[in-house]
Each structure stands twice: as structure tokens, then as C-alpha cells.
């Protein structure tokens, strides 16, 4: 197993370097610069600004300098927010995004696994059709629709929960976590139903039943471990997706997470911020994929022996 992990890490490093290089040149190819504004900056000022941020150097020199700094762990200063470094901004937004993703994954797991398992056990009954139809709607419904709908109902009509904020008012984390978790809950429900159906038809489950075990024990002790393998493999990319894709929820609920910095950096042509966040997110995706692969190896003896 250690060999597998080391191999994956060895592949990850050049992947990150390629991502950094491609992003570096792509952002500079995009029309418009970080200091373009509706109120035009006088040429003299633009010259000074370019000099301050090393943008007057040849592109290849800028690339070399950036990569040298990157290897030392320095993402550089933000162009949009003078006095802030990209590393500082990632550190500021990341805990919030992580927390949001964590709650969302909990919501997704509880709702998804429960619905999926019930649907599989009560196959072809209303308890199968109803959760699976809701799951399909959940997959199709975008967060920018679900979020405002939840806010209108729970925040404005019932006045039960705050409509926005994070760590400011009591209960302000509930609606964003549900909104972000809902789509993933739907995926997990479908995956766990599929996994459980396959496991429930296995011989060892039949043996357990034949031995006279009560049904809940068969499901919890015997079927669940195998049935949830597809869910676990999905959790890695899902967590990375939750972190990278939380932008919409962060905007709807006014949450100071990293997703907002990421997208706004692209609009502002904040070169260093775009690069920093892209590299950071790529690393996260690679890391979470590795984690879920390890979990699958631990849960599935067949995969372990193949590895």
C-alpha cells in the first residue's frame, strides 16, 4: 500500500507543476490586465504599477521568478488587494470553506445513505420510488435555485433562520450546509442504492439471512460495508468538488470562503490569486482522490490484492 501512495505522490508533483505553468500562461493570454478599470489609469501610473508587480519584465523572466517563489511556497502578493498576500487570503478563506464542505458532506451522507439504503431494502415499493424521485430532482436542481428557495421559506416566510452570514447569527450555518449538501445527498442516495442492491444479492448476505439474523443486523453488519464502497470512492472527488464548487453557495449566503476569492480573482485578472487558488485546488483534488483510493483499498479486499 505504501508503494501505491508513494507512486501517486510521485505522479502528483509534475501534474501540479504542469497545472501551474499552463495556468500562468493562460491567465496572461486573457485580454485585459489587473489594473484596467473603467476610469482609465494614466500611462505613467500604469508604468509604475507594472514595475511594482514585476509585470514589465519579459514573460519568461516573470515565469521563472514565479516558479522559483512557488517552489519556496510563496504565491506572491494579490494584485487586487494591495497589502495582502495570496497565501494569507487562502488561509483566511480556507477554514470557512472547509467547514462548510464538512457540514455539507455530513448532510449529504446522512440523507443520502439513509435514503439509498431504505430504497434498496424496500426495492420497487413507494419507499424506493419516492426517495429516488426526490434524489433525481435534487441532482437536477442547481444550488442557485435551491438556496434562495430555502432562504425565502425558512428565512423570510417563517423567520426561523438567518438569510445569510457565517458565524454571525445563531443558526446561520444550517441553510448553506443543506443547500450545498443537497445535490451530493442525491448522488449518494443513488450510489448507495446501487451498491446495496448489488451486495444484498450476494451469497454471504443470503447465508447471513439463512442463519436467522434479524434483517437490520444483516444490513448493518454485513451488507453496508460492501454496499457503501461506491459511495466512499465518490467521497474523494465529491469533497474536492464541494470545496472548489462552493462559490455559488458562498455568494448566495454571503460566506467568506475561498470559492468567492477564486472566481472573483478570475474576473479581476488578479494573476497571482488565480494561480495560487488554482494550484491549491488542484493539490486538494489530487489529495482527496488519493485519500478515497486508500479508503477503498482498506474496505475492499479484492482491490487490495489487485494493488
Amino acid at each position: 500500500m505504501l508503494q501505491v501512495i508513494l507512486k501517486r505522490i510521485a505522479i502528483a508533483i509534475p501534474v501540479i507543476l504542469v497545472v501551474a505553468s499552463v495556468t500562468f500562461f493562460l491567465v496572461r493570454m486573457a485580454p485585459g490586465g489587473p489594473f484596467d478599470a473603467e476610469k482609465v489609469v494614466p500611462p505613467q501610473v500604469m508604468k509604475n504599477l507594472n514595475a511594482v508587480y514585476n509585470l514589465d519584465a519579459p514573460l519568461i523572466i516573470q515565469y521563472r521568478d514565479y516558479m522559483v517563489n512557488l517552489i519556496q511556497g510563496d504565491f506572491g502578493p494579490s494584485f487586487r488587494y494591495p497589502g495582502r498576500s495570496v497565501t494569507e487570503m487562502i488561509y483566511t478563506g480556507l477554514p470557512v470553506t472547509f467547514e462548510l464542505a464538512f457540514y455539507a458532506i455530513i448532510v449529504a451522507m446522512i440523507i443520502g445513505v439513509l435514503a439509498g439504503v431504505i430504497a434498496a431494502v424496500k426495492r420497487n415499493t413507494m419507499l424506493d420510488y419516492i426517495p429516488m424521485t426526490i434524489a433525481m430532482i435534487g441532482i437536477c436542481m442547481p444550488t442557485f435555485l435551491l438556496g434562495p428557495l430555502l432562504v425565502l421559506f425558512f428565512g423570510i416566510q417563517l423567520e426561523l433562520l438567518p438569510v445569510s452570514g457565517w458565524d454571525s447569527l445563531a443558526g446561520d450555518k444550517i441553510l448553506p450546509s443543506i443547500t450545498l449538501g443537497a445535490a451530493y445527498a442525491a448522488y449518494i442516495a443513488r450510489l448507495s442504492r446501487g451498491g446495496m442492491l448489488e451486495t444484498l444479492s450476494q451469497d454471504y448476505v443470503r447465508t447471513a439471512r439463512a442463519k436467522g439474523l434479524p434483517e437490520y443486523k444483516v444490513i448493518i453488519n454485513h451488507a453496508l460495508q460492501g454496499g457503501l464502497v461506491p459511495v466512499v470512492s465518490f467521497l474523494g472527488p465529491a469533497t474536492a468538488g464541494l470545496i472548489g464548487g462552493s462559490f455559488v453557495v458562498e455568494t448566495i449566503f454571503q460566506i467568506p470562503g475561498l470559492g468567492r476569492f477564486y472566481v472573483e480573482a478570475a474576473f479581476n485578472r488578479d494573476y497571482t490569486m488565480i494561480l495560487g487558488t488554482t494550484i491549491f485546488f488542484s493539490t486538494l483534488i489530487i489529495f482527496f482522490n488519493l485519500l478515497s483510493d486508500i479508503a477503498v483499498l482498506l474496505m475492499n479486499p479484492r482491490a487490495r490484492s489487485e494493488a
Partner: protein
Amino acid sequence: MKIKYLSYFFLLNFILACSPSISPVDDGLEKQILHFGNGTEPQGLDPHIVTGVPEHHLLISLCEGLTIANPRGGENLPGVAESWQISEDGKTYTFFLNKSAKWSNGDLLVAEDFVWSWERILTPSLGSQYPDMLYYLEGASDFHQGKTSDFTSVGVKAIDDHVLEVKLKNPTPFFIKLLSHYSTYPVHKKTVLQHGTIDDRNGQWTRPGNFVCNGPMNLKTWELNKEIIVEKNPLYWDAQNVKLNQIIYYPVTNESTEDRMFRAGQLHVTNVVPLEKCPVYIENKNPNLRIEPYMGTYFYRVNTLHPILKDKKIRQALAFAINRKQIVEKVSKCGQQAAYSFTPPGSAGYEPDTEVPFNPELAKSLLAEAGYEDGKNFPLLEILFNTQEGHRKIALAIQQMWQENLGISVQLVNQDWKVYLAREMTGDFQISRAGWIGDYEDPNTFLDTLRPNRGNNKTGWENKEYDRLVELANKTNDQEKRYEYLNEAEKILIDEMPIIPIYTYVRQYQLSNDVKGWYPNLLDTHHPKFIYLER
């Protein structure tokens, strides 16, 4: 049965836990805390580096210039300068500073602080984006452009601790108004130098704990993308008249989120009203909706270097084929006023005497005179605009008007903000949507932009007579005479039509009825020292 009762118990608990006991707006009323929707996350709090409206809202709380904008509009009020004298030729200003003006750390604010601060903003290597606000001073542009490195050649001098003398190149009747703009604010030399050099853009002096300035409020906390809290500065020279204890600025980029926050009692004032909500709120007579005159013009910029559009008759034909009234009543639908001049009417008492008729017949005949009878053989015309629903709707309406009234084909080109800016800058457009908001209440802030060699002109249009008249106006001390010259210049501009005015902006936002001391004004400046909360 037990399970049933248990679930009821949990549900009840959930509901009780969730119910917010008191909304921030109600809580704010008691504690005099204003909850302020501030658009985007500010770039920073260094008045010499940042640009933008959210930054302006914060900086008028935290710092103060020689004058402050009048909350009811009109002439500026004393700020750090308690009075001033202007020489007869209008070129020398002597400011008498308030002797009780202090920095938030208790240091006395002296005239030399302004001299050093203005040296800082004019230091080329700082890369300030607003040095031109001080270009009216003798020698300022030469210093900023590196023609001299001797700051004593710039027309600002501390006569003593409390007297500041400023020498201008020309009499500039709106100079006092410039002094309430944050780019002219003083910064605390010791603090700035403690965290960097005079030209350090990345100095940490603006962080909570480090920040020292001289406004009615002090910086308390700053959480990125969440909120900035400022609290009353007890050392402010007019602290006894400041009623608010705190202002919390929220960087809410999403208009719908902001609207929901207002409805849920989380904000006293919003930055905007969502485009689609405005007509609904007008119809429902929403008591919190505010629609107020604003010193801004929405217009179409014409590339006069384009082979077709260099013909004045074509530009006029395009302008006369637009039904502005219909645009404001049926498309923008939020109280905007049809515009017939570049400078919004009523700016500091200036009333432009220009007309842009909606006359399809005249427009057609002008197009025919230019060689395109009924629009035949007229090449496909492009309207460039940045991605926003409001711009798209207006472009669609104008596309249809030009097609119907002139018989020409029009294509809409929608671009991302930075791409749109880059295309405008390089002249890679035919017609582009644009907006201009005044920096100070004077027609010069509009008319100056269309002089030759001004970066914001972007139309390629140059007119010597226009340039001469605006220059002449800036050298004239007599306001009436000055406005005559500017009106003449405006007539030339509207006749030549390098820009096609569409409508005059309004400020549309929501304001809680608890907010008092908040008055409509053209620049939309609401100084916190006049605001208080009362129900």
C-alpha cells in the same frame, strides 16, 4: 408512540434554536449600530492607493480631508480645515486647520501632515491611481511625471502647524470640492513609515491594530469578505456630534442576497436594488425604496476613428433614432431620466442647454445625406457591452430602434468586463456602452474627460474649440461666465456626438426608516457623522 413524541420534542427544539430572537436592525437601533450593505470587498483602506465606491464609503468614516461633502449637496463643509481664504486671483488657498484635529492615536494633526501625504500620493513609485486630483497644484504633474524630484517645487506648504498654503496653476473654482475626495486625505506619517516606505503599496499600516487616521470612526475589525467594523473615534474633533457607535460594512456582491438580507432585518441600507425588483417595488410602493438623482450618465461611446462613424451625420442619425423616453419607461424602469446632455442637469447649478431629439425622419435624412438612403449598403454595426442583464436589455432596445428607424443591421457583442475594457482601450469597437460618474460636483468632472489626450476619452474625437472652451472655463473665476463657456463646449459635444447620451443615472437602494440624518445628494455621499438611528 414514544418515538412520535420524541420527534415532536426535537422539532420544537430545532425551531426554538433557530428563531433569531432579535434582528440586527432592531438590535442596532438600541446600540446605534448601522448595518451597511457595501457592494464588494474593498481593495484596501489606504486612501492613496484604492479607488472605488465601497472604499469611499469606508474612508469617509475613517479619515477626513480638509473639507467634507455637504450631506444635503451643495458647497463643501469644513473638515480638518475650519476655514479658508482664497486670493483674489483665485490661485492661492490658505487653509486654517482646526486646532483640536487629532489622529486616532492622539497625535496632533498639523499642516505638515498634508504636505507629506500629498507628496506621497504624487510619488510616482507609489502607483496611486488618483494623482491627477492634485494636478491642479503648481508643479504637481511635473513632480509626479518625474520631471523634477524636488517636492518643494509643488504648490503646497505648511506656513505653521495650523496653516496650510496651496498654490494652484489656474484658478480652479471646484478645488474646495476636490478636497473631500479620499485621494487628498492625510495619512499618519509615523504609522505609514513604521510599516513600510513612503511608496510601499503593500505596507501593513491599514490593518486593524495598526490603522491610524483622523475620521469620525476607528477601524475595529476587518474580516475579508465578511465584514468591516468601525467604531466611534472619541478623539475626533467633532466627536460630540457623532451619534453612531458602530458601522458594520458588509461586502455583499450578490444583489438578491442583499435584498433578502434587508428584508430579513439584517441591513439598514443596501447598496443597490436588484434590476428585476425595482419596477415591482415601485408598483408596490415599497416604503424603503429610495430613488434619488445621481451625478452619472449612461451613454454610448462612438469610435470616431472608424471609417463609417467618423462621419458626424451618421453619429447624429444614430443619436436621433433613439427613443430615450421609451428606454427609461419600458426598459430600465427604475426612475432613470432620459439624457440630452453629457453632464447631468443640475450639477452644482449647471443646466446644459442642449437637445437630442427623437426624430426618425431627421435621422433617416441625415443617414441618406451620408450616402446610405434607407440604410442600404450600411455595413453591419456592432454594439459592444459588458456582461450584465441591464446593458443587454438596453442594447436590444437600441438595436431594434436603429433597425426600425434607420434600416441598418446591428449586432450585439457581449464581453467579460476586462475584455470589454481592453477592447475599448485599444479602440477595437464601433459603439460601446459606457457610464460616467462624477468625482466631484462640478460639470468639469464630465466635460474634461472628452478633451484630447484624456485617457477616458476613448472615442478618438478631438475638437480644438471644445478644448479651448473647457480650458478657458477652468481659468475663469466668475462662475456665471464659467458655466457659459462650459455650456458652449457641451453644445459642441452634443452636436458632434462622439458620445450618445441615453439616460441620467439614479441611485436606487433600500433604506430602513430608522435611519435619520441621511439626505439625497447628487454624489451619493452620506457622511457618517450626520447619521443616527431612531424609530
